[in-house]
């Protein structure tokens, strides 16, 4: 091999070996293979050579050219790979064992239970209604067949306001307005009234772990032609099974007295803890008194503009606050209105 070619080749090898960056390689490429590069420069000396020599020299220069191109590409690839490896390595390994920062908000537990109940009743065709917290004596008592001297009206039970209104003691206070709102559709279109109305209620009593003066209930009514006790039992059993997501739930009715229903019932469900076997939480009876209900009193229907000789209906009242306490094991009812985040922030979405 021609000495000049050999020298150049050795020089290239040394330069390539020393090259550390793609930029240096680009320089080498120009230096050796460019139009004015050293490989091309070799050809300038060809004039002095014989044809025979020219032939072999030219071949050797071309070989060097190919060799240079190949080696530079190889080196480029190696450098790129090393660069990538460095880049990959440069990223630190994160400590996945660090606890997550959830930064989550929370719902009031009554909201969660109320949503569950509303969803169940909506799925069974019940309208969800809202109602005010401050009502009149007519709404809370008179329209509900509660006579003027009934103990429920006593000052020790009801918060009366100085303008003559009162804080509603029961969600039933919305019944009359609901009947009046939907009676035309019932009478003219035969559309049964099916509604639930959750709301906050107030009782003038001293608070302790089991008693609150402010709590949530949800009332429900269904009025139509021939709505019967058998319908009430079916509806309550079905809806409560959904609310508790317990499809083996048993219900039973006992007589109960409430002025706005006749007959009136206390509805018991099989104990959710022991399933009816008997345990301390159901006082070994296997049953849990859950909700008052009954066939709407004829006077109450009449007061709502509905003829009790044509229509019948049932009504029930669920204690949402109580349901929330049962569901989440809240022992002290006062926690619910405390606003204490240590307690309340635990109630995240619960689907």
């Amino acid at each position, binding site marked *: 091999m021609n000495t000049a070619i050999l020298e150049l080749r050795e020089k290239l090898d040394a330069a390539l070996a020393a090259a550390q960056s793609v930029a240096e390689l680009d320089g080498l490429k120009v230096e050796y293979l460019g139009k004015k590069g050293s490989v091309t420069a070799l050809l300038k000396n060809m004039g002095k050579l014989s044809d025979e020599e020219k032939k072999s020299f030219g071949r050797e220069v071309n070989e060097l050219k190919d060799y240079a191109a190949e080696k530079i590409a190889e080196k480029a690839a190696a450098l790129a790979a090393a660069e990538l490896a460095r880049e990959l390595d440069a990223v630190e390994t994160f400590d996945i064992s660090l606890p997550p920062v959830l930064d989550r908000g*929370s719902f*009031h537990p009554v909201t969660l239970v109320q949503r569950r109940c509303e969803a169940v009743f909506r799925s069974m065709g019940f309208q969800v209604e809202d109602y005010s917290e401050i009502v009149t004596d007519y709404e809370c008592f008179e329209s509900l067949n509660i006579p003027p001297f009934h103990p429920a009206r006593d000052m020790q039970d009801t918060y*009366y306001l100085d303008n003559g209104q009162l804080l509603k003691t029961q969600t039933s206070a919305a019944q009359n307005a609901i009947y009046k709102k939907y009676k035309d559709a019932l009478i003219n279109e035969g*559309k049964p009234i099916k509604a639930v109305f959750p709301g906050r209620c107030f009782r*003038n009593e001293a608070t302790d772990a089991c008693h609150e003066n402010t709590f949530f209930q949800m009332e429900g009514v269904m009025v139509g032609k021939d709505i019967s*006790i058998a319908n009430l039992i079916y509806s309550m059993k079905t809806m409560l099974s959904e609310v508790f997501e317990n499809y083996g739930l048993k219900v039973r009715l*006992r007589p109960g007295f409430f002025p706005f229903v006749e007959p*009136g019932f206390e509805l018991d469900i099989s104990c959710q803890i022991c399933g009816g076997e008997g345990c301390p939480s159901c006082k070994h009876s296997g049953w849990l008194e859950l909700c008052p209900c009954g066939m709407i009193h004829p006077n109450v229907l009449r007061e709502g503009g509905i003829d009790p000789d044509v229509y019948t209906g049932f009504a029930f009242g669920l204690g949402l606050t109580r349901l929330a306490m049962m569901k989440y094991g809240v022992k002290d009812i006062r926690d619910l209105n405390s606003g204490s985040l240590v307690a309340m922030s635990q109630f995240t979405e619960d689907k």
Partner: protein
Amino acid sequence: MYISMNWIREFVDLSGLDIMDLIRQFSLSTAEVENEIFHKGSDLSGVVVAEIRSVAPHPESKKLHLLKVDIGESEPVDVVCGAPNVREGMKTAFAKVGARLGEITIAPRPLAGYMSCGMCCSEKEIGISDDNSGIMDLDPAYANGTDLKDIFAIDDIVFEVDNKSLTNRPDLWGHYGIAREFSALSGRPLKALPVANLEAYASLPALDIEIENDDCLRYSGLKFDNVGVSVSPVNMRIRLFYCGMRAINFLADMTNYLMLEMGQPMHAFDSRKVESIRVRKFAEAFTFATLDGVERKCDENTLMICNGETPVAIAGIMGGLDSEIVADTTSLTLESACFDPVSVRKSAARLAHRTDASQRYEKTLDPEMTVTAIARFVKLLSEIDPGAKVTSCLTDRYNRSYECKTLEIDKSFVDRYTGIGDAITCDHIEKTLTALGFAVERDGENFRVTVPSWRATKDVTLKADLIEEITRIYGYDNFAPITAKSPLYPVRMELTKSVEENVKDMLVKRFSLHEVHSYVWAYSDEYKRLGMEVEDNVRLLNATNPNLSVLRTSIVPTELCQLKTNVGYAPEFGLFEIGRVVKGLREDGMCNERKMLCITLYSKTAELRDLYFRLRDMLAVLADELKHKALVFAPMAAEHSWQHPKNLNSVSCDGICLGEMGVVHPTVGKSIDKKASIVYAELDIEAFAKIAPAGIRYEEASRFPGMEIDLNVSSDTFAPIKESIDAAACPYIKGVRVVDVYRGEEGCAINVRISFSCADRTLTREEVQAVVDGIVADLAAKGMPLK
């Protein structure tokens, strides 16, 4: 109220029936029975009649005696006894060796050095009364060795009925009424109550009784002389004890016994103290000593029983101390009366003295019962004390009565209510109503039903009331659950409801806020502590706590109180509540109740400005997400103690003011936490719900390149810049963005980026520049040149 099954069985033959099952049925069909049922006497055995043959003093004890006791066996037994009333020849109750008294089994054991083989028992030790003053002193006629259970009705099943479940059943406040239920449930007949014939005394002189007030419906009286018995028979005392009452003396026990049996409260006056009975009220308040020795203040609304002008009893509540039966009473005037339920309830509440009698009168007792109760009293008295004499005729003042009700129902009416058709037959209807004391005239499927007096005082007045009677005895457990046949209709989500739920979801899930509930009234103590005023508003008339007597006008202060309790929970958190406030009265005098959303943000780490904008953007996101609309903020003047006067802005949408947002007043803020920033917002959620949503208006993305122009405007507010851009009214302006806000010594500048694009062509540099020039000129004219 406790019910003795022995007593019930006196009126209904329940032999051969499962008593426990009947009680369970009673609980499901009539009234709630408490879980624990007492099997009285079941833990007692081996107690017999024994005669004390000899009593010798114990050599080392003054209290103890050494007895020889004949227990009906061949040899008397040796017993050491400490009873004070022990005497030779006495017959007493004796627990033999091997006897069981509750937990104790009697075994021979040495007592103070002497063997004692058994025990002489007091009534308390046997569990038939709380009398532990001495050992029982039995009638000498009983043969030694006779099991006490063969003499006295010690074995009994006693259950407790929840009084609350009897609220509407005045007829169930005595055993006879309960027996009627057992009769209907078991299908066994109810026996007639054994009573004396009061006609026999018609010729005797009448008592001087006058009703002078309408709160007394009826007053019946009878006088007795020569009453010799002072201690009630054991069986009577056992029943009283099992039913939760103490034996006092024979006459008082008799009135209590009658009350427990018939539900009719009665009162026995010492005849020496009562000559002319007047039932009346007084014009002025006075104090009156009741027989429990307490001085009570009776006012002008309290109905009194008087001897002439002198009060001797508080009607329906309690007798007086001066006229009560005492040790030497042999002559009594018996009161069996009926008083107005509301009057009794209110008087008892005013006196803070609810008695067994008042509790019954409150339930609206049947006035027909007064005379029957007297007839029953006479019957029992003559059996127990044959020497006692009735010395007046029945004197009965019947002032007013309840209407006799007759109701007509037919089978189809029943079917409509029950929904289970022929599962309830006409025969069942007739049988049930008859068993419960209703007079039924049946004509095929039609029934004419007369309500008995004891159900007619308020309980049964309508046809629907009869449904309850028929169905509860049929048994609700026997109903098949059947779905209603009703047409299907879509259920629409109520507007406020759906907005409310969405707002809650966004605040919790997107902004990590915590939902809380606070009370609807202001907490004056805590407000004061935080430097907030309780604003004048609608008040509670009867707040138990004077600190909580004014309704809140805003949720902000109640939420700030809760925020205060959470300082230390985290360096940064936010609360929200959707709740009611009352903003004074409306024109019609009703409360102006509004449903508000209140948000408070607390941060120890964020700058006030950043926290403020975080809240501002939160509100903007709610409006954008739920209504696709922008909110408008405008400065307003502070009017509440919790408002910082600066940065207080009203929040509106579509020209409707929804509420406000602001910074908490520094005085309040510092009371909560000296080092934290606190901002709040309060919006009317119903007003917000009513804002019509703009909906989604789809605009196709331009396929032609757009252009962005940055302007750096000397201005300290963005609003005028936005106005100038809007004034250009250029349809190609698709967006305006604030890139940077500069506040420095050389004044303020806002860097605004305006994007231009056109749907159907590429905009030229020149046309865009022309628009920009217009905007720049407008700004310059307002004194806001480009930097």
